[in-house]
């Protein structure tokens, strides 16, 4: 049974007191060195496992599944506290999603965790047929979304998932941008009758929302800053970058609205239309192909809301490119998804 804590099985005991039983000791002494266990602790905003462990204390419905990635997504934090409600299915993501659907029919609320590339594309049919169509309350923790896996390359990137999921009936899609919004999203959606796709980053996201922030509410665009010259629509990693860019612009006397369009489905069209004026300017920055994601949702919302003549710019992965090889932060810079990239695109848009 995978439900029980690994019982050692030939491994020597850990010499790091904070490692669970069965870990072997890493040798390194150079403080810049690290191993998987240390890497796990660097992912400060990867709190889903921990948050679910807490939620599960009082809620027997919560179970967690992963596919040989419990350290990468820190569902190991859940396993430590609730070993009987934790299931590692090995490298078999499609089975994981469908197995969770089976558990949901018994009243459980399963959380399945794997890289976004596999959670969305590899499991697309299972999400549609086994979760969305019967409307089962399975939650997909799709971590390392976008190009967060940097030089792992295209196989590990997910820049098509929003396009897929926006067309999927019954699906709710939320993209928290930090630890607090991840926690809030998990709590807010606990009783959601249908499935949820939680698009998560790589766990190194800086805090955007203060603890207990009421401003992050699933289903509603969060207006994090208000200004009449330009509206920046952000999502995930671009939220913090947009706020930084907006601050620089403010220092120059340009007032910018910054929206966190975290809930991509259903999209808060009203919230967007409230924040963008006809004849205004809108910049959308997202860690996704420029087609089919947040920018598309925004354009559709404006068109339907009758808001015309908006000057629009998009930042994302170009329509016919797969991201280059590089560490994630280098890629963010390269594709203009960081504060500087947003700032320079904003300046260009304002000059148009």
């Amino acid at each position, binding site marked *: *049974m995978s439900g029980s804590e690994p019982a050692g099985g030939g491994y020597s005991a850990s010499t790091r007191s904070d490692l669970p039983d069965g870990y072997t000791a890493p040798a390194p002494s150079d403080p810049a060195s690290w191993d998987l266990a240390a890497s796990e602790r660097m992912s400060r905003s990867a709190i889903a496992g921990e948050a679910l462990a807490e939620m599960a204390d009082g809620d027997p419905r919560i179970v967690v599944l992963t596919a040989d990635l419990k350290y990468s997504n820190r569902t190991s934090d859940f396993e430590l506290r609730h070993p009987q409600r934790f299931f590692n299915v090995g490298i078999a993501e499609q*089975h994981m999603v*469908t*197995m969770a659907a089976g558990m949901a029919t*018994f*009243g459980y609320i399963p959380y399945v965790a794997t890289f976004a590339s596999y959670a969305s594309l590899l499991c697309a049919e299972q999400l549609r*047929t*086994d979760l969305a169509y019967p*409307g089962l*309350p399975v939650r997909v923790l799709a971590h390392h979304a976008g190009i967060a896996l940097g030089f792992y390359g295209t196989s590990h990137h997910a820049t098509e998932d929003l396009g897929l999921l926006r067309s999927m009936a019954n699906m709710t899609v939320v993209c928290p941008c930090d630890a607090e919004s991840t926690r809030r999203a998990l709590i807010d959606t606990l009783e959601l009758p249908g499935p949820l796709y939680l698009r998560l980053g790589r766990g190194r996201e800086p805090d955007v929302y203060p603890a207990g922030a009421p401003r992050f509410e699933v289903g509603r665009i969060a207006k994090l800053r208000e200004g009449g010259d330009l509206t920046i629509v952000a999502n995930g990693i671009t939220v913090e970058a947009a706020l930084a860019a907006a601050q620089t612009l403010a220092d120059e006397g340009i007032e910018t609205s910054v929206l966190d369009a975290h809930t991509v489905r259903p999209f808060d069209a009203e919230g967007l239309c409230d924040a963008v004026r006809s004849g205004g300017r809108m910049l959308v920055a997202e860690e996704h192909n420029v087609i089919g994601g947040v920018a598309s949702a925004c354009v559709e919302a404006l068109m339907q809301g009758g808001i015309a003549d908006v000057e629009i710019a998009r930042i994302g992965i170009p329509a016919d490119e797969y991201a280059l090889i590089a560490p994630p932060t280098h890629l963010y810079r390269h594709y203009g998804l960081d504060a500087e990239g947003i700032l320079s695109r904003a300046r260009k848009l304002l000059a148009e």
Partner: protein
Amino acid sequence: MSGTSEREEGFGVSEGSDGQLGEPAGTDAGVAGASVAGAGAVSDELVAEIEARAAMIRRETIRLIEVAKSGHYTSVYSAAEILATLYSGAMRIAEDPQWAERDRLVLSKGHVAVGVYPLLAERGYIAHELLDQYTRLGNPLGDHPDMRRVPGIDFSSGSLGHGLSVGVGMAQAARLRGYRRTRIWVLLGDQELNEGQVWEAAQAASHFRLANLCAIVDRNQMGLDGDTEEVMSVEPIRGRFEAFGWDVLEVDGHDPAALAKTLTTLPEPGEGRPLCVIAHTVKGKGVGYMELSRTWHLGYLAPADAARTLRELEQA
């Protein structure tokens, strides 16, 4: 007409220790199977009951497909005795199709649904009138079953290869909820075993030691395009399941006594190796020109032919 989900029931009532929900493990109070067979012996009555039920399935399939004007006769006919046996006491089900501790049946070969709906009507889970409008706009009964709209259907299916994973999830959940007598049945096609997800589920079932899971393979020798071993081999089915950690039994899938003996005398569901029952069958069984025919995976019998074929079935 809408199947209520178990989600609403039983939870939050009490806390329970971690990993086990608060509800008491179920009793048999709710069980109202048609005829629960005693261990070992298979009565003549039970055999007759299964035979009658299989005949009903074959007849009703012709009638329903006459409404739809297209359907999977042969995929039902290979499974008629299997389904009849499951619904003649092998499955632990009750008057309430949503009884929490019931056995579950996952129709992984979902296109067999047209042969299952009449069984659900017979049990009173759905109204007989729904059958008359099979596949018509607004009717919940389609070529593949919908758990949200059809009481008695435990999971929606249609995409081959998913059902065993569903079964693993259900079996794991049944154990976690403390339903010690609940068994999860999964009906698989033989060509369906080509799907890799079947093997992902198979490995998980044995790894998790889900002895409360029973897969039945309808070994009717054919997929859609022809003979399985010609299209894409699935043999040795026994060897493959054994290598994936399962116990395997083989049975003549058209012999009611053998089926009843096998399916009604399984050990109590518990922890251990999951069980695969290979039911040796004939695709299209019962209708001569359909048996092992390459052109009858899908088809339609207009009234005159339907009547003629019904007569052939009666004389068998």
